[in-house]
C-alpha cells in the first residue's frame, strides 16, 4: 500500500478503542498500534457489519466483538480486498432492489396461484378413507345428539336417495340442535340441524338444502377448503398476524363464494332429476333473506357451529351481512361476506322452475311428519350443546 491508512479497531476482548494503521501483506493484514502489532488477520474472514456514522464497520467472523471502522475515503487497493457492503440482504443486493422486487413479486404471484388452484386437483387425490377417518375423529357420535327413529330414518333415506344416485358413501344425520343450519363435514358427513326442520315449511325445502350440502360433498369442497386454508396459512405466515389473517380470510372467502354457487348449481340439477319443485327452496331463501334484512344480530341462522378454520364446514345458512337495503356499496360488502346473498340465490332457484311441469312432493305428509318429529320422538337423544358455542358469524368467515 502506497501510504499508511489509519483506522479504529476493537479487539473484541477489551472495550478500548485503538487507533491503528493497516499493514497489508497479500490476503492478510496486521493492525499496527504505536509499535504493538495486532494480527495477522485474513481479509477473507471479514464481514461487512454496517455503517456507524461516517464509518464503514467490518467484523471478523471468528472473533466476537472484533471491529474495524474505516472512515473517509478508503484507498482503492484496500477496497478491492474488503468484502462487499450489504444493504438489503445478500440476495437483494446481488440482484439490485428493482430487479429483486420484480423477481420476488413474480415468484410470489406464482406461489399464490399454485396454492389457490392446487386444492382443486389435490382434494380428489386425498383417499376417501382418510377423509372418512378425519370426519369420524371430528364428529364421532356427536355427543349422542343424533336423532333416531325408525320412521324418521326411513323418511331421511328416501329424501336423500332421491337426490343422489348412490348415497352409500354419505353419512346424513339430523342433530338435535336448534339452529337453522346444515353442514357438510369431512368424509361425506352431512348434518341437518333440527332448527332447520322446524323452520322449513315442506320436505321440498329441506330437499333443496340437503342437495346443496351434497353438492359440497360431491365437489370435494370440504377437503379443498381444508387444504387451501392450510396452504394460505403457510404462504401468508410471513406477514404479521393481522395483515396475514385478513388477506387469508378475504382470499379464501372468494373461494367459498364460488363453492356456494357450485353447490347451488348441483342442488338445482339434483332437484330437477328428482322431480322436486325448486320453488320451495327459493321460498326458503326468501324467508332467510327477509330475516337477514331485518335485524341480523339476533337472527337464528347466525348462531352456527363456529368451526375453527381447520375443520371448515360449508353451510346453507345465510350470510351474516348487516345489509339493510341494497345499494352499490352494500353489494360490495355483500360480495365480501362469506355466502352469496340469499336474494340472488333465490332467483337462481326460481329461474330453474319449469312452468306447467308436474312436480312430485319429496316426501308424503306422513314421511315429512316422521322426519320433523324424529328428534322429539327419540327418547334418548341428547339436546343442545353443553357449551355455548358462541354467536360468532358464519363459520367460513373469521
Amino acid at each position, binding site marked *: 500500500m502506497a501510504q499508511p491508512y489509519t483506522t479504529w479497531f*476493537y479487539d*473484541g*476482548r*477489551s*472495550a*478500548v*478503542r485503538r487507533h491503528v494503521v493497516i499493514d497489508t501483506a497479500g490476503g492478510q493484514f496486521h493492525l499496527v498500534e504505536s509499535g504493538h502489532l495486532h494480527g495477522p488477520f485474513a481479509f477473507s474472514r471479514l464481514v461487512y*457489519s*454496517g455503517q*456507524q*456514522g461516517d464509518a464503514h464497520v467490518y467484523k471478523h467472523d471468528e472473533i*466476537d*466483538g472484533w*471491529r474495524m471502522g474505516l472512515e473517509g475515503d478508503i484507498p482503492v487497493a484496500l477496497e478491492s480486498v474488503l468484502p462487499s457492503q450489504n444493504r*438489503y*440482504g445478500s440476495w*437483494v443486493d446481488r440482484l439490485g432492489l428493482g430487479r429483486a*422486487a420484480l423477481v*420476488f*413479486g413474480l415468484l*410470489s404471484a406464482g*406461489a*399464490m396461484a399454485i396454492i*389457490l388452484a392446487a386444492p382443486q386437483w389435490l382434494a380428489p387425490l386425498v383417499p376417501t378413507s382418510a377423509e372418512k377417518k378425519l370426519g369420524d*375423529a*371430528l*364428529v364421532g357420535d*356427536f*355427543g*349422542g345428539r343424533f336423532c333416531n327413529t325408525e320412521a324418521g330414518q326411513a323418511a331421511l333415506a328416501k329424501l336423500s336417495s332421491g337426490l343422489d344416485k348412490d348415497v352409500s358413501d354419505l353419512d346424513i344425520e339430523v342433530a338435535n340442535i336448534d339452529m337453522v343450519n346444515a353442514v357438510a363435514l369431512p368424509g361425506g358427513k352431512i348434518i341437518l340441524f333440527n332448527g332447520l326442520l322446524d323452520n322449513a315449511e315442506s320436505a321440498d325445502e329441506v330437499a333443496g338444502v340437503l342437495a346443496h350440502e351434497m353438492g359440497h360433498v360431491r365437489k370435494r369442497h370440504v377437503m379443498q377448503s381444508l387444504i387451501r386454508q392450510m396452504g394460505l396459512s403457510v404462504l*401468508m405466515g*410471513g*406477514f*404479521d398476524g393481522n*395483515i396475514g389473517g*385478513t388477506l387469508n380470510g*378475504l382470499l379464501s372467502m372468494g373461494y367459498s*363464494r*364460488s*363453492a356456494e*354457487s357450485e353447490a347451488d*348449481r348441483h342442488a*338445482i340439477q339434483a332437484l330437477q332429476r328428482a322431480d322436486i319443485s325448486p320453488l320451495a327452496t327459493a321460498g326458503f331463501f326468501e324467508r332467510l333473506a327477509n330475516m337477514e334484512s331485518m335485524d341480523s344480530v339476533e337472527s337464528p341462522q347466525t348462531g352456527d357451529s363456529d368451526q*375453527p378454520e*381447520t375443520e371448515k364446514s360449508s353451510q346453507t345458512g345465510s350470510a351474516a351481512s348487516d345489509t339493510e337495503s341494497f345499494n*352499490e*356499496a352494500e*353489494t*360490495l360488502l*355483500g*360480495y365480501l361476506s362469506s355466502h*352469496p*346473498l340469499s*336474494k*340472488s*340465490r333465490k332467483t*337462481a332457484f326460481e329461474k330453474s322452475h319449469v312452468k306447467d311441469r308436474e312436480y312430485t312432493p319429496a316426501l308424503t305428509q306422513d314421511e315429512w311428519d316422521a322426519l320433523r318429529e324424529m328428534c322429539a320422538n327419540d327418547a334418548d337423544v341428547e339436546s343442545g*350443546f*353443553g*357449551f355455548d358455542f358462541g354467536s360468532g358469524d358464519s363459520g367460513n368467515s373469521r
Partner: protein
Amino acid sequence: MREHFDKTTPPSPEDSAFEFSGNWGAFGKIALTNILLTIVTLGIYRFWATTRERKYLWSETRFIDDRLEWTGTGLELLIGFVLVILLFIIPLFIIQFVQQALLLQGQEGAAAALTFVMLGLIFYLGGLARYRALRYRLARTYWHGIRGGSDDQGFSYGWSYMWKTAIGYMILGLLIPWSMMSLWNERWGRMSFGQHQFSAIGDYADTFKRYLLFYLAPFIFFAGAVIIGIMTAAVDSPAMAGISIILLVLFFYLGLGLIAMTFYAKFYRVAIDGLSLHKLDFGFSAKTKDWFILLLGDAGIWLIAALAVALPAITIIGTSSLLGGFEMPQPGEDPGQLYLALLVPILVFAVIPFMLVGPFIRYRHWRFFITYMQCYGEIDLEELTQSDTSTSKHGEGLLDAFDIGAI
C-alpha cells in the same frame, strides 16, 4: 480511559450519556423499501426489514463516546419464527382440533381440561418469550465491541412469571405493581453486559400511590356518576342529561387511560432508576406529560394512515357504478375467479399505509426512550471485557408469535 458522569448536575442533551441522532428522511427510505420487499416476498422479508430498522436505530444512538451496533440478522429471526411454528403453532392447531372433536362428542369435561392445559402453556411461554427477547436483544447489542447477554435460559423465569402474575391478580389485583416490578427486577437481574451483571432493585412501593389512583378511579367515577345522576334528575333537563352522559363516557375512556398512563410513567422511572451496571447507574426522566405526547403522536400516525385509506376508498365506492364490476354475483358465475384479480391490488393499496404505521411508531418509541434515558457514574474502558455468555442462533420467535413489544 475513564468516563465520568455526575448525578448532581442535570445533564443537558449534549452532555447526556445517551443521544439519538436519527432523522425521519433516512429512516423513511428504509421503511419504504422494507414495505416493498415485504409485499413482494409475501411477508418473508419482514425479518430482514426488522433487522435493517434496528441497525439504523442502534447506529444512530450514541452512548457516552460511541454508537451502539445491532448485529442480529434476518435469518436468525426467521429461524426463531419457524421454530415457533413447529413447536407451538402446529401443536396448538392439533390441540384445537382434538378439543373441537371432544366438544362435538359431548366430552365437555375433557375439552375444558384440555383448554386449561393449553392456556397454562400459553401463559408460561408468554413469560419465557419476554425473557428470551430481552436476552436476545442484549446479546446482539454491541458497544465498543462488547456485548451483553445471559447464560440463564429463562425456563425458571417462565415459572416466576406465572406465579407472580397470578399472585398479582389475587387480593383484588392490589399486588399487580409488586408482580410487575418484581418480574422486571428478576429479568434484568439475570442479564449482563461485558463481564458485569446488571442489578435491578426498583421498589414497587414507590409506584403504589399512582396505582391506587388508577385502582380507585372507577369507584370515584361511580360516586361521581351517582351525584351527577341525582343532580340531573333534580334539574330535569334533557340537555343536561346528555352532557353528563358524554362527560361520563369521556372520563371512562380517556380519564382512566390517562390515569393508567401516570402509573406506567412512574413505573418506568422507578424501574430504570433501580437499574445499574457495575459503577453505572441508569435513570429515566420521562414524565406523564411526555408519555401523553408520545401516545398522542402515535394516535396521529394511525389517523393519517386511516385517512390515507378511507378517502380514496370512499371516492371509489362513490363512483363504483363507473367500474360496474361489483354487480351481484349469480350462482351461475364463478365470482371467486372473477374478482380475485381486482381484489388483490385493492388490498395491497389499502394495506400499505397501515404497514407504514408500525415502523414510524417504533422509530418514535426508540427516540423517546433514548431521549429520556440517563446514565450516571463512571465506566473504565480498560477494565470492561467481552461477555462470555452463550448466544442462541435464533431470534425472538416466541415474542414475535405472541406479538409482545418490549423495550
